[in-house]
């Protein structure tokens, strides 16, 4: 490998077809740490004419007689590649308080004393890189492996999770990664609440197609709250919202009671009268029974009947379930896939309020919260509230979306970790660069990644972009409940 040039914070390195460099590899150039973000052919003058000449007669119609050693060299120049490597920093020796000296990674570069002719360039061993970054990498880790020439297992440490974003275009593997992370958190005894918009997580308790044992399912570590469900079955629990947890306006909206009708003030009256107490549909029914206006009375009785049939309102065991599942860790999934728009928002609002209350009263240990496409059921001010307030209550949100532009900018400015899968859209890539962990050129490499390959950066990677590939999960049905046109 030879150093060709330095352009801004990019090193351009030429290498021969015999040498192997991959996207995401870390190049060590005389003490400088740089990361390969693009690979292309060396732009050798005359190569177009050289290739055009070769295309005059097809390869299959050409018989070449030459010395084998000459044959091995022919085309080697035309096949020379250049790797564009983004300068990340340098390795420096540091002695700790115990007097132990080790090489550590330091970002930034204030001097550039590198010789083109003599620079020693090599692909930095992943073990050395991890050591310099202070990253733990258990050899038996199965979450993912780095994409470098010498892949190395890498695990996301739950201790380093804060505000997290897992993003990527549809089908890029982001939900798969989120599910794998969820299972890892269960392994570490963490409870995660999941707002599952598309029924992606509903089968996690089931065994995979080869019917291998699913330890999460058998241990009851995964429970699904389903709205409108009459009775609990297997891992599914009916999701009911206590009536006193929602406002009169929410209830009126749910039952199509227009504010200009006389039913609306009647509902407000009940809510005002019952403030501070735990009331349910029976209490409301009694109140309506005592109304003098027969039209209002009849109208509201019809609405209450509808609410009863919906099975959405009633006493809820959420707090108890959370407390119980926290003992060993697990996942509590809220199936929003069959809930209406209004239902989604009141379910989420109720759950967040419950968690907030538990957090404030310090009744629970810190928990993780997965929000799939949060922008579709939480408005921007509430997302900002989650970002700023929830973390102080011990609630660590992970946003999962295929539309990074739909999330408020505050998500990016407060982000602790980014796990980004393939995007082709420039605007999406620019949005991701707003997190400040990674430059636009580097994040643009997402265009070239394959399914389940991603860039992870943040506290989990000591702020060094790691190109990783998510490993398959054994024993767990990872597919959601998406229906196919033809199966």
């Amino acid at each position, binding site marked *: 490998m030879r150093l060709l040039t330095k352009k801004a914070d990019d090193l351009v390195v030429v290498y021969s077809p015999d040498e192997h460099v991959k996207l995401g590899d870390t190049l060590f150039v005389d003490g400088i740490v740089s990361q390969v973000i693009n690979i292309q052919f060396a732009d050798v*003058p005359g190569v177009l004419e050289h290739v055009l000449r070769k295309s005059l007669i097809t390869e299959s119609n050409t018989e070449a007689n030459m010395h084998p050693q*000459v044959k091995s060299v022919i085309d080697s120049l*035309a096949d020379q590649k250049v790797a564009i490597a983004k300068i990340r920093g340098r390795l420096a020796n540091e002695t700790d308080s115990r007097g132990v000296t080790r090489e550590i990674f330091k970002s930034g570069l204030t001097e550039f004393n590198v010789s083109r002719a003599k620079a020693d360039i090599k692909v930095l061993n992943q073990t050395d890189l991890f050591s310099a970054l202070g990253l733990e990498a258990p050899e038996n880790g199965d979450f993912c492996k780095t994409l470098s020439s010498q892949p190395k297992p890498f695990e996301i440490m739950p201790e380093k999770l804060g505000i997290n974003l897992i993003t990527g275009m549809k089908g890029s593997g982001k939900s798969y990664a989120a599910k794998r992370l969820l299972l890892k958190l269960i392994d570490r005894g963490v409870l995660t609440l999941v707002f599952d918009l598309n029924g992606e997580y509903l089968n996690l308790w089931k065994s995979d197609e080869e019917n291998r044992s699913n330890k999460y399912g058998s241990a009851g570590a995964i429970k699904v709250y389903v709205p409108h469900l009459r009775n609990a079955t297997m891992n599914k629990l009916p999701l009911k919202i206590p009536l006193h947890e929602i406002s009169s306006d929410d209830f009126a909206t749910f039952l199509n009671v227009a504010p200009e009708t006389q039913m609306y003030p009647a509902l407000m009256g009940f809510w005002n009268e019952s403030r501070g107490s735990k009331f349910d549909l029976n209490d409301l029914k009694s109140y309506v029974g005592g109304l003098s206006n027969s039209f209002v009375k009849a109208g509201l009785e019809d609405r209450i009947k509808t609410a009863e049939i919906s099975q959405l309102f009633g006493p809820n065991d959420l707090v108890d379930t959370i407390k119980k599942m926290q003992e060993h860790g697990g996942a509590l999934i809220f199936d929003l896939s069959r809930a209406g728009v209004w239902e989604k928002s009141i379910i989420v609002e109720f759950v967040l309020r419950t968690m907030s209350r538990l957090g404030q009263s310090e009744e629970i240990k810190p928990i993780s919260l997965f929000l799939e496409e949060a922008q579709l059921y939480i408005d921007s001010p509430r997302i900002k509230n989650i970002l700023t307030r929830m973390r102080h209550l011990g609630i660590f949100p992970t946003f999962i979306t295929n539309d990074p532009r739909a999330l408020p900018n505050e998500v990016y400015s407060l982000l602790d970790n980014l796990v980004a899968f393939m995007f082709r859209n420039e605007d999406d890539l620019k949005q991701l660069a707003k997190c400040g962990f990674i430059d636009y050129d580097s994040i643009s490499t997402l265009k070239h990644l394959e399914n389940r390959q991603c860039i992870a950066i943040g506290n989990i990677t000591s702020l060094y972009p790691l190109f990783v590939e998510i490993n398959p999960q054994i024993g767990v049905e990872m597919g959601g409940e998406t229906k196919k046109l033809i199966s």
Partner: protein
Amino acid sequence: MDDVLSVVPGEVREQLAFEPSTVDLAECFVSPTKSDEDDADTVDIEEQANWTQVQRMASSYPADTQIVAIDSTSFKLGQLPEGLVGAIRTSVVIRPAGEVNRHLQLYGPYLFPLTNQNKDAFYTRLYEVVHKKQPPDRAPDLTRILDRIRALIERAIQIKVMRAYKNSLVLLDGSLIASSVGDPRSTVQRLVDEAALNQNSVVAVSKSTRLTLQNSKRSITSLLDNSTGPCYVGGIKEHIIQQTDKYLGNIYVARLASLGHIFRIDIPLKTSVPHSDIFAQIAGLAGEHGYPEELRLAHMTCVLSCIEILELQAAAMQLFGLTMEENLRQELFYL
């Protein structure tokens, strides 16, 4: 080709210093001019008197005839203390009868480390393999040796082609002329005879010639200066003042396409197809500039691109255990 290649010197003294030839990548291809062993003979034709001898030719694309075209190139890859390393490549382009697609046989690039110490022995052995007799003289000096070897190898491949193919129109780059030193008459005659035996029509096309008109001292190609369209003039050999034994075919001057260049064309005296029909066929093969397309392809596929030269310089160093020596001038005066 094995017999030819068996005599190539495979080794030179280890660790010889090698000064690679300078390559300008902006040039894309390097195509050194082949040396002309053709003697500068004179033709006693008066330009004006020949107007009546200009023959018109009707172009007829020889779709049902196999076309074979041969061309070769050489390049000095670099300097050794007492020699050089050269590369030679020959292309044979074949368009089988009734087909549209062409096939290509590439011979080389072959690398030759030639020094004052090994060049005579190598040249003698190669000459013997190709011409089946001892060379009349020692090898030429280092400035001309590479081109002489190229000509020997090209001739060997031409003879191989004449034997391998039948009923073909074989296009050669150059002329059907025997040289006293490099290319004895017997070999050129053998080539013509092998061609006749297999019913091949040989056409040698020269882009330039040293045959000049007696009075005007202009090239014989000027005979067609005042004519238009595809045409040719024949019977030139009969008007050469000097000895004509070395010319093994009829010599023509021809323009193969309406706006094409004028070439000297040699065709053996005895061919299975009349010369007028051969002219119709090669006019049918002529491209935009009046040069037969298969021959143009043979040239384009044999010349070395600058990229290949750089690669071959690396291969030569590896193959012959040479060590790089920077050009002292360039090192001192790098600006």
